[in-house]
């Protein structure tokens, strides 16, 4: 019934819809992009194993501007010795891992050579656990590989497939900048998006890397600490902080000269950062929806006047006041819902176009779509009620006589 009334005034309904569409569109658009960003961050973070936190020289997000960077730059690097100290003294930790990117370039096997975009990362045996890397064939790196600074490596799945299209990578060697590394294993695919860049690396013992590529003085490692369970997270963080402050000789009262972050804390930082954007969008959208609602009320009042006779007919043949009331509120709600639905579709499409441009995975914020449509219903009910009451209170005799 409401759809019939809508269809009868296509242009008018369409124009009325636009307001709602714009309001919902802006909400959904921004929420879609935000959701995409957030998922992206989360999926990168989920590269970490369970109950793991990281220690770095640099914070993930700098809140202090250029002067902040200067302060961070002056910090001592996280060194191999720090890792060793943590491993011995942080007794609460299940494992302490270290990782450092050493180089990037072309890797070659007997058969194939890669693009010059393969990362060579130095790792410790614990890193496999902390990073959630699973070995598909062969073995991970072992403490002995580190002690002997052996020229061995574990391949990421992507590069393994590239270099050994026929398989049989184990016990082969790969060559990187003139040095052969024996392949002791390769990893399961991580299933990254956008070209599987996540798997395009080779892993060598961190000691091998430090010897070969140097820079022990200026290279800062990333340390990963895994706890036994979630409950011990806080205590472990405190212990690790204490140990690091001691070995790095941070005077009491000074702030830490390193950054400890977990998935949760990073996600929280992201949320805080985007809160302002989301609040802003909510305010703008609310204003748009308020304007749309007033437009709807206006058009509904016109509609009630125009259809006075119809109301009279309906009342004469037995419609109660509340039937008329519901009919007009429903019409307002349908206008809003149709507008909202278009807004959701455009918003998701626009948001995903933006996400595609930013090379983010596509997302469909179901919760926000539902919230958006719910808001539309509320707008329809709120702004449709007054015209509907007016319609319901028309006198049947008068309205039957209305020309």
């Amino acid at each position, binding site marked *: 019934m409401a759809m*019939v*009334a809508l269809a*009868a005034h296509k242009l008018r309904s369409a124009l009325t819809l636009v307001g709602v569409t714009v309001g919902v569109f802006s909400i959904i658009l921004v929420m879609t992009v935000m959701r995409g960003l957030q998922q992206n961050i989360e999926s990168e973070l989920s590269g970490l194993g369970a109950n793991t936190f990281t220690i770095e020289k640099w914070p993930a997000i700098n809140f202090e501007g250029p002067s902040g960077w200067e302060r961070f730059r002056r910090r001592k690097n996280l060194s191999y010795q720090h890792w060793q100290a943590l491993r011995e003294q942080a007794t609460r930790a299940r494992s302490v891992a270290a990782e450092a990117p050493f180089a990037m370039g072309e890797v070659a096997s007997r058969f194939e050579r890669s693009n010059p975009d393969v990362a060579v990362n130095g790792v410790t045996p614990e890193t496999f656990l902390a990073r959630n890397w699973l070995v598909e064939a062969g073995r991970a790196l072992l403490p002995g590989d580190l002690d002997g600074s052996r020229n061995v490596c574990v391949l990421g799945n992507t590069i393994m497939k590239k270099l050994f299209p026929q398989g049989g990578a184990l016990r082969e060697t790969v060559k990187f900048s003139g040095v052969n590394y024996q392949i002791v294993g390769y990893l399961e695919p991580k299933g990254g998006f956008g070209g599987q860049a996540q798997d395009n690396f080779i892993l060598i013992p961190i000691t091998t890397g430090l010897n070969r590529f140097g820079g022990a003085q200026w290279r800062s490692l990333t340390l990963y600490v895994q706890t036994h369970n979630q409950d011990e997270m806080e205590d472990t963080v405190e212990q690790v902080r204490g140990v690091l402050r001691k070995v790095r000789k941070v005077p009491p009262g000074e702030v830490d000269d390193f950054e400890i972050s977990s998935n949760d804390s990073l996600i929280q930082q992201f949320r805080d950062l985007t809160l302002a954007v989301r609040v802003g969008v909510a305010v703008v959208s609310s204003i748009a929806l308020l304007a749309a609602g007033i437009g709807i009320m206006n058009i509904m009042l016109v509609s009630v006047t125009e259809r006075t*006779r*119809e109301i*009279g*007919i*309906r*009342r*004469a*043949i*037995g*419609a*109660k*006041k*509340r*039937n008329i009331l519901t009919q007009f509120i429903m019409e307002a709600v349908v206008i809003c819902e149709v507008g909202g639905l278009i807004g959701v579709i455009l918003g998701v499409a626009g948001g995903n176009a933006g996400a595609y441009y930013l090379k983010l995975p596509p997302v469909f914020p179901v919760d926000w779509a539902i919230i958006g449509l719910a808001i539309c219903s509320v707008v329809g009910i709120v702004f449709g009620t007054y015209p509907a009451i007016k319609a319901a209170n028309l006198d*049947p*005799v008068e309205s*039957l006589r209305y020309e």
Partner: protein
Amino acid sequence: MPLIRLQDIWRSYQMAAETVHALRGVSLSIERGEYVAIMGPSGSGKSTMMNLLGCLDTPTSGTYELNGTDVSHRDDNELAEIRNREIGFVFQTFNLLARATALRNVELPMVYAGVSPDERREKALVALAAVGLADRVDHRPNELSGGQRQRVAVARALVNSPSILLADEPTGNLDSKTGVEILALFDELASKGNTIIVVTHEEKVALHSRRIVRILDGNIASDEQVRRVEGRESRFEGKPAPDPSA
């Protein structure tokens, strides 16, 4: 027990400072199955009469018993229910919903009566067939002739099996030939036992009824039975109608 019993009905309107009495103590009884015409010049109070009979309005004083129950002081919702159940309206201007098909129009009273969609459709099709529009059910009012529109209105009026068919100048917007057709339909309905009340100012229309009630200045001026002569309707008998209080 009469179907309709009006007793000393007054209906007054407050116009600015003065009170206008549209009806001044009308008393009237109509039995089930009667075919009554209510006549009167404009301003006589016949519209007010029709609104009251149709439960679109309530009297200022007096009682209106419909089917043995007093309906003169009901609230808006109850009146809507009574209209839905007991009264079928046929208007001069048809008053169909322009955007709905004939079928939808006829279904409408049943929508408000809470009839299920399937039953609604079934009954509406029967009602449309009964007025000879079985092949026009999916047409909208603007695709129908005046006579067909009025037939749809009649089908809509009868679909809930009301106690009264209340027609207000049913031929007023029709040419004379179509008017005759509609009146023939009314005759047929009356012969099947429907109670019909036609409000009109046309003598020719009134002569189709069996009883003519004339209203003048808010009161019943005359109330006479129509005598039917073989082959043609004409002249009334001049015999007074039964005493309404009897």
